[in-house]
């Protein structure tokens, strides 16, 4: 159970942001660093019955039950066997007015980069071939294209029944 702390040196300003970039297969993705709670190594999860395959299960994260999602499978990039080097990024999403923590399985975390908001391009429309609903925009980092993910949309697993009973 290793934990790496991510420390940015950037002074946030109105038009700059820091992203944490990671790889899935040949592709580079990024999330807003402020949404990253921690980075952990993969550990076995408890399976949850009757849910989509990419929802791997739940783990105990300091007393909270946190679901783990395999991003590769979510994006249809095939499955990679988990090893102790597999990384889980714990993200915070704001869904229906509450903050929720969820872990996403990625191949490897690459870097923390500063980007200027002005260089973010809107996602081109690929038609129906590629689902781009989770992608906020594209940015070029060191001549590589990074797809910026919308954490809230990505992690909204709620089925549309809106059954939001509150249990303590």
């Amino acid at each position, binding site marked *: 159970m290793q934990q790496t702390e991510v420390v940015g040196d950037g002074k946030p300003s109105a038009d700059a942001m820091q992203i944490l970039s990671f790889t899935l297969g040949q592709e580079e993705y990024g999330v807003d660093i402020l949404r990253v709670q921690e980075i952990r190594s993969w550990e*076995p*999860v*408890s*399976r*949850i*019955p*009757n*849910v989509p395959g990419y929802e791997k*299960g*739940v*783990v*105990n994260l300091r*007393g*909270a*039950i*946190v*679901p783990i999602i395999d991003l590769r499978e979510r994006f249809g990039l095939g499955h990679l066997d988990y090893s102790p080097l597999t990384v889980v990024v714990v993200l915070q999403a704001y869904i229906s007015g*509450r903050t*929720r*923590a*969820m872990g996403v399985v990625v191949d490897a975390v690459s870097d923390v980069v500063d980007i200027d908001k002005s260089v973010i391009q809107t996602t081109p429309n690929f038609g129906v071939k590629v689902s781009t609903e989770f992608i906020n925009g594209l940015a070029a980092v060191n001549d590589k294209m990074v797809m910026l993910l919308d954490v809230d949309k990505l992690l909204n*697993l*709620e*089925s549309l029944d809106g*059954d*939001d*009973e*509150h*249990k*303590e």
Partner: protein
Amino acid sequence: MSIDMAQFHQVFFEESFEGLDAMETGLLNLDEGDIDAINTIFRAAHSIKGGSGTFGFTSVSDFTHVMETLLDEMRDGSRPVTQSAVDVLLGSVDCLREMLTAIRDQQNLDTESVAAHQQALQREFESGGSVSPRSDDTGVEGNAVAEQASEVEGWRIAFSPHTDLLRTGNDPVRMFRELAELGDIEATVDFQGVPDIHDLDPEECHLSWQLSVNGDIPRAEIDEIFAWVEDECDLAIQASLGGVTEHNEAPQATQNETGDRFSAPRQVQAPVKTGTNDSTKPADSSPAKPKDAKKEASKSTQKGSSSIRVDTAKIDTLINMVGELVITQSMLSLIGEHFEVNKLDQLKNGLSQLERHTRELQESVMNIRMLPISFVFSRFPRLVHDLSAKLGKKIELKLVGEQTEVDKTVVELLSDPLVHLVRNSLDHGIEMPEERRAAGKPEIGTVVLEAYHRGGNIVIEVVDDGRGLDKDKLRAKAIEKGLIEEDAILNDKQTYELIFMPGFSTAAQLTDVSGRGVGMDVVRKNIQALGGNIELVSELGKGSTISIHLPLTLAILDGQSVAVGEERFIVPLGSIVESMNIGEDRVNSVAGKGETFRLRNEYLPIVRMHEIFNVESARATQLSEGLLVVVEGQGVKCGLFVDDLLGQQQVVIKSLEANYRRIEGVSGATILGDGSVALILDIPGLVRLSNQ
């Protein structure tokens, strides 16, 4: 620098509401001449008045002023304690509660009801005991007072605070401002006591004043202003009576003089036109219907507050425990640093210590959330008092076991169902006095609210000695409503169960007391949602007993862990009926409904866990290879087919929905000893799943 008063509001409201509760309790138990009770009520009123004055809630302080004066007269015996006075005061307590709630939630005050209550108080005040100084009535006593009052031209006050007056939160300037409102004021200040600037502590008060207030002011109003500081100053108040100066002692905390008492604040003097009240009738202190709903609503918002008052003793034990835990931890890490085999015994000792501490710590943390059930019970004396008057019945309420502690969440969720049950007992259970006499029972009916612990549960009983339930009537009613077949054979228990069925109400007509469209089925549903159950036992002519069983806390449950392949699930222990091993030959297939098996004379559905949860590693696929656990939850019975039973343990319930979502067939999750997560099964959900 001004102090932001708002930061104290929370405390003021909390204390005021507590004060109001104390007043209510005191008033309900008020017997003639019970000085202690009257003192308690008076003190509470006085604190609310003082606090609201300080924060500038003038409407509240004016209102309380009248109450306080009434109470003061009761306190010194110059006014008899009458039922009408008590009723008016009770009404005023309600009114104050509404006012404070409105101020706290920054809603609009219901000025009409406030005015009505104020009028009622005023009338009560004028009708008994002493005499309003401004009235033309010249009774002997009143005369003397009036004379004395009329001769007063003003007061001269020598006020020298002790040095620590400011530290008690009092402020001379504020007091003088109040004085100035009474009449023209002149003040000379004496700087004599002020030390050299180097020795001056800004929090100390070294000044003293000579004040004179001119005007026809009753002594009580002057005393009122200095009442808060009488222990922190030297005070001399002299009346200037038409040239003669009469010297008075400093006011004593307990006044026995029936001197000049009261003049209502100006706001009350003017008769308030409400248009709703016929001034020949005493003001109706029971608010109208729509307001009732509003009151209920404000009560429920009040419940949402998430702070909790904890006995400091509980906190102290907690701190001690943590200290112990730290010591144990450091001992264990010492052993771990240089571990040799001969230290094994030490290690075992340390570990068992750790286990003990952890358990104790868990218990005391849970304990913090525990509140005595009196938080719920305390509202009932009032409810019974008001309702029995309304229904014209004579009813005595007994509370037993008020100190029994339950988890805060349980306490909050209990109050609505209990109110419903008690109203039911009063309305349908207890008979009218003449009916009771005819039946050879005492006129006064008894309702007992009792709470006690049994096992890991709390049991709350509502017992009445009323007319009881008529089994034949219940049955006829159920048949009429089409809830059961005409030839259904029911034992006693099942007959009484009928009352909890949806769409069942025995009251011939809905009264506004209990039949508000909410039936016992809703009460039962709410209790079951808390993981409890509710039972009714009754004897015709003797009375009924309704008992509610609830888990002590919603955070922990006793679980039985079961294995299905590699996976572990937790079944709530309370829902397990029995476990058995049966062969496939005892299974009947039901078209479209899955499988059932026969247990004694019931056919129960079989839920094959490995199938509905898609567990590939399941060991047992044939019934004979595994175990059938017969479970019952929320009225649903079924047999869960699992590989094996493992151990029983207490598990801490964690929400799956906090970060994830609802999973059908699962009510929550818990963390096992090895840190892994296990799901807690939800019986009705599983049955639904297996029928899909």
